[in-house]
């Protein structure tokens, strides 16, 4: 396993943002430069969007290609759920935000990658956009 220096957690935001930086970051995952973790909540959010508007065939195609990226999914354990509830109460953001922040804190992520301004105020873990993450980790585009 890589050390925690290169371990990052991706917020759902990264998958909703089709910018060059988000794509470049996910391409880094593909070549194995980073250890990238994704909360089960993110998968639920993404699939809730896909199942509303996309055919089953495309969902299969999406799933197959996500598996090729070798992302590590992090289930919502009791520890993460409790922390998530605490962060929701502390910051007043959504339960999903709380769980994703709790995931990043629990796995000792170096960066929680998101472009969501709601998460900029948190102090428990470093938060950065995909572009800043690429710069801070010295990754090539």
């Amino acid at each position, binding site marked *: 396993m890589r050390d925690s220096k290169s371990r990052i957690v991706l917020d759902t935001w990264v998958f909703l943002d089709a910018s060059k930086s988000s794509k470049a970051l996910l391409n880094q995952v593909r070549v194995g430069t980073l250890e990238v973790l994704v909360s089960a909540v993110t998968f639920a959010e993404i699939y809730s969007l896909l199942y509303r508007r*996309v055919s089953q065939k495309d969902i299969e195609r999406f799933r197959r290609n996500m598996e090729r990226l070798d992302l590590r999914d992090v289930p919502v354990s009791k520890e993460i759920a409790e922390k998530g509830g605490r962060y929701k109460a502390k910051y007043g953001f959504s339960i999903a935000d709380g769980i994703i922040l709790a995931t990043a804190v629990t796995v000792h992520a170096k960066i929680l990658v998101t472009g969501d301004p709601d998460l900029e105020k948190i102090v428990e873990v470093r938060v950065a956009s995909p572009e800043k993450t690429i710069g801070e980790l010295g990754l090539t585009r």
Partner: protein
Amino acid sequence: MKPTAKGRLYTLLRNLDSDFHKGLLVSSHLFYSLWDGLVTKQTEIIRVDSKGRISIPRALREHLNLNQGVELEISENKGTIVLAPLAENPVDTIFDVLSRALPEGKTATEILHELRAEWDQDLDKEASRD
């Protein structure tokens, strides 16, 4: 050794004494020669090792330009294993499929906030029922 289907056909035709059957013999010989040529050019026997691995013969790798790191998609079709080079970049495909699922004209932040507001609305509804 047990005679093959091809051997049995040749013997049968040889034993029949007519020009028609001799013609059949020549035709079948030509057919099998062509078939053997095609099969020997395209088929090679490989063995699965103890870990389930196989090696793609070098000539085939070079012919299809399968260099180290090339990803292949493996599937099964009526008892035949199909290995196909993956042409698509997974990241491009992921964003391509997602782009069709996302509401048009909205930023990632707007979509995310709507999605997360749904969670909390559902939780609020549950709470108000109690």
